[in-house]
């Protein structure tokens, strides 16, 4: 599961069913200092470009990225991977705050929090389906 996330381009695979999400640029693998750029369309007409830089990489336990370009004053995201009952439990921890002209703390709570929760719920569902299909198509003897 960690190796799936260690390829930043797979974020687009997870978000295929979300036309509001677009991967603009990314490297082949997660490495500290590496960047990826995404575009998220809000309110149907406003695409928001955000650039992130990887700040932490500890395979197969965690990696983190921080926002380097976009409407947030701060946006830190840590992905934690834990073994759990034969599977992998993924925890996403996000600390974010919009820049004050765009609403600051209040704007973050009112406008961003709900969208983020919805997006990660969608990601979780897609990830489960991907993992399930990968499990079903695995041939006997495959590791």
């Amino acid at each position, binding site marked *: 599961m960690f190796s799936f996330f260690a390829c930043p381009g797979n974020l687009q695979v997870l978000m295929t069913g979300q036309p509001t999400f677009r991967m*603009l*640029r990314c490297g082949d693998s997660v490495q500290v200092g590496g960047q990826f*750029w995404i*575009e998220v369309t809000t309110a149907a*007409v*406003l*695409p*928001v*470009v955000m650039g992130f830089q990887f700040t932490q990489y500890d395979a197969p336990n965690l990696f983190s990225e921080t926002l380097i*370009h*976009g*409407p947030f004053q701060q946006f830190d995201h840590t992905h934690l991977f834990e073994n759990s009952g034969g599977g992998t439990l993924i925890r996403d921890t996000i600390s974010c705050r919009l820049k004050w*002209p*765009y609403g600051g703390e209040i704007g973050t709570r009112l406008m961003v929090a709900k969208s983020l929760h919805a997006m990660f719920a969608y990601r979780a569902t897609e990830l489960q389906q991907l993992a399930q299909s990968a499990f079903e198509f695995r041939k006997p003897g495959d590791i």
Partner: protein
Amino acid sequence: MEVASYLLFVLGVLGAADIAMYHSVSHGIRNHPDSRAELITHSLRGPTYAVLFVLLPNFSLKGWWFGLLVIILIFDLLISLIDFALERKSRSFFNGLPSGEYVLHTVIAMVFGAMVSSVFYEGGRYFYHATSITYFPAVPEFLRAIFVVMAVLVLISGTQDAVAVLRLGGQPMRAPNAK
């Protein structure tokens, strides 16, 4: 110049939406080194529109004062043409302009054309009068008050663009073909 003033107001509102939505929230070009040249054109537009927001709704311009107005409009047209020419490379790292920004620019260009036509239709004959500038309100007081606020805001926006040009000066370009 009543009609020209109303069209200038519409132009100001559309321009503010363009700056707030697309230049700031969507692409954050004041923090994008590749957009430095585009920001220079935007910084020049600030004082240009501040002058227009004050002159057009408040004064009757005759002779060379009307000529000055025409020069400002030609200057703004040149800024816009250069801006359009620069935008493709300026935003190439973001895969180009958002569709909505293209639409907005087209509408802005049409309103600008209509405003210039109104300026010549309503005031063109004044170019042949003796040179003078007279306080002659063309629109209601509350709208002229809004124009003053808009003049201040567009000056601040232009100054922020100029500051960004200086700040981004030493930073490397993001897209390889951005120069």
